């Protein structure tokens, strides 16, 4: 197991300031490669000679491109990492409700963006698995079988889409890690995680396999009854960072939501990363300049930042 479990659990007061970059991107047709490559260069990622795993959010057939991480973002990220010297950049996902992964890949046209996927894409639902004892006890789960491709990766990048979620409030880079849990062990959907408590399971999974980096596709997000049946939301941003908790907190702020009110995110802020703005160095655009309020279901109205008179947020660091 070479993933960064050793760095997953660090008390917030001992964790260095996290860095999150917000980049405006009006559409998937623009030069995303240049945008992402230049941004990744700012982070000086330790990927040279390493095996990098991109974990996009591919939940189902999506011919309109509103549910899944867009293949243009995946391809641009992959090419950027290869330019940065990564020895291998794999794309891995274990879709949650549809076991025909190839149908999903074809519906989004992934191979038209990255070329042949046969040696690049790993269906994490049916990968070889290894039993992993969980380091935390947020849920009742004590162990999980996880894909060996994930456990063997040197550097993991969570690549969610900017979406609301009907059970968790928001689904971003932490919730996206549900997709590493293999369907061949836990089904379609991965119902064991639901019974264990979604918020708690998110924490346990990320404590076991914390992403090293996150790239959020917020060019077109989803609001309302996400992650599958919400409405497309043009947000025009990519949000990247070296701390998935800080990235998710920043995403919430962009969505006009309060990260501290998102149960799992609030708890993740204790040991997995930063949610407070004074611990997040902001790069690129300011939150206020890109803020796009997302609508949420009635049961998540408490997440809405009603005090967010735009521009009155505390000063940003960096």
């Amino acid at each position, binding site marked *: 197991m070479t993933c960064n479990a050793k760095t997953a659990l660090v008390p917030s007061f001992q964790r260095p300031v996290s860095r999150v970059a917000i980049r405006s991107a009006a559409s998937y047709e623009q030069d995303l490669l240049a945008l992402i490559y230049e941004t990744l260069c700012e982070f000086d990622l330790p990927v040279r000679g390493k095996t990098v795993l991109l974990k996009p959010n591919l939940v*189902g*057939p999506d*011919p309109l491109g509103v549910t899944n991480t867009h293949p243009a973002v995946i391809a641009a990220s992959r090419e950027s990492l290869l330019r940065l010297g990564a020895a291998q950049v794999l794309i891995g996902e274990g879709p949650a*409700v*549809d*076991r*025909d*992964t*190839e*149908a*999903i*890949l*074809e*519906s989004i046209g992934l*191979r038209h963006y990255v*070329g*042949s*996927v*046969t040696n690049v*894409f790993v*269906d994490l639902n*049916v*990968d*070889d*698995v290894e*039993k992993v004892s969980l380091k935390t006890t947020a849920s009742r789960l004590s162990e999980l*079988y996880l894909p060996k491709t994930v456990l063997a990766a040197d550097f993991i990048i969570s690549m969610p889409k900017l979406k609301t979620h*009907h059970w968790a409030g928001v689904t971003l880079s932490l919730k996206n890690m549900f997709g590493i849990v293999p369907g*061949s*062990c*836990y*089904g*379609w*959907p991965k*119902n*064991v995680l*639901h*019974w264990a408590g979604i918020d708690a399971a998110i924490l346990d999974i990320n404590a076991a396999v914390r992403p090293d980096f996150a790239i959020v596709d917020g060019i077109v997000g989803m609001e309302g*009854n996400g992650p*599958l*049946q919400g409405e497309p939301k043009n947000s025009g941003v990519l949000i990247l960072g070296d701390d998935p908790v800080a990235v998710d907190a920043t995403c919430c702020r962009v969505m006009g939501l309060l990260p501290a009110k998102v149960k799992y995110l609030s708890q993740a802020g204790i040991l997995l990363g930063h949610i407070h703005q004074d611990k997040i160095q902001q790069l690129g655009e300011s939150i206020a300049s890109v803020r796009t309020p997302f609508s949420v*279901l009635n*049961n998540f109205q408490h997440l809405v930042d009603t005090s967010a008179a735009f521009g009155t947020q505390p000063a940003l660091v960096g």
Partner: protein
Amino acid sequence: MIPENEAAFTPEGSCAARAGVIALELERNPSVSFVESVCLPKLRSAQNDDGGWGYRPGLQSRVEPTCWVLQALFNVADVEGSRETCQRGLQFLRSAQLPDGSWPFAAGQEVGCSVTAPACWALLSSKSSPEAVAAGLNWLSQDAPRDAAFLRRWLRRLSPTRHYSRQHGAYRGWGWNPGTSSWVEPTSVALIALGLCPKELLPAGANERRQSAEAMLYDRMCPGGGWNCGDPMVYGVPGKSLVIPTAWALIALRGYPQRTENMVSLDWLERNLPDEQGPGSLALAQICLEAYGHKWPETARRPGHLYSNNEFLGSTTTTAWVCLAANSRRSWLTGEEETSR
């Protein structure tokens, strides 16, 4: 047989290049079917030393892909040529069974799960190991999803989100793992396995479980026909049906072809197949439509046509399903002997 549609072979990538070589071979020898020239050799060569198959060649043996590959090999023309392969596969299956009669999802796992149903089904097709089948089905009949428990249903009635779901909580299907909820695919496959089981092997109470599971499937049908994994309504919004669960549910419920739900769902399936791009989905849909005596939609592609896209992502399960769809023998599905192919 493929490639009937040569245009399906795109000129990009090494995958297409390999597929092009296969197409050339088929052109030279059109009597060689895609299944016999491509799928079966891939499956045979993917068998692990322990007799089982992984989800992809070279991966650790798992129960589920082993079951589907065995079903595919049982149906091939050259049964004799596959005999030893099948025997080794069956031996793997038998050795993977847990003492309580169930099968686990992976070696080392000590708790059984939904793969118990396809394991029983494969053993039924092999006409061997009746004791193993009886033990497996007995485990299945005793496995009670937690969402149908009385306390759980009572708590759900108090939940502020109770209005968002219209599911009938008392119906019991099967879950993917013990102690979880009922879902469409494991329920369907368990129903099929129980339906194929000789009466003498059926556990007590099996008929009642089947009736409840069938009711659960009908209850979970999506508005407008078809099934998804098992959430027909999400926060008041109709769930989107998917091909694989729809095909499984329809196959499991094929004893009721005149029910409105079946007809509406068949209609959904036929309407959506032309847009389907997954070979596994298409293969199961083909098996499903044939079970109802329906013709393949003219505008839908055959599963094998999609091979050139991604070589089925190397999936042994998909390859096995494509073999089963392409073969006209259906004894594995009906339990009836077929004297000729």
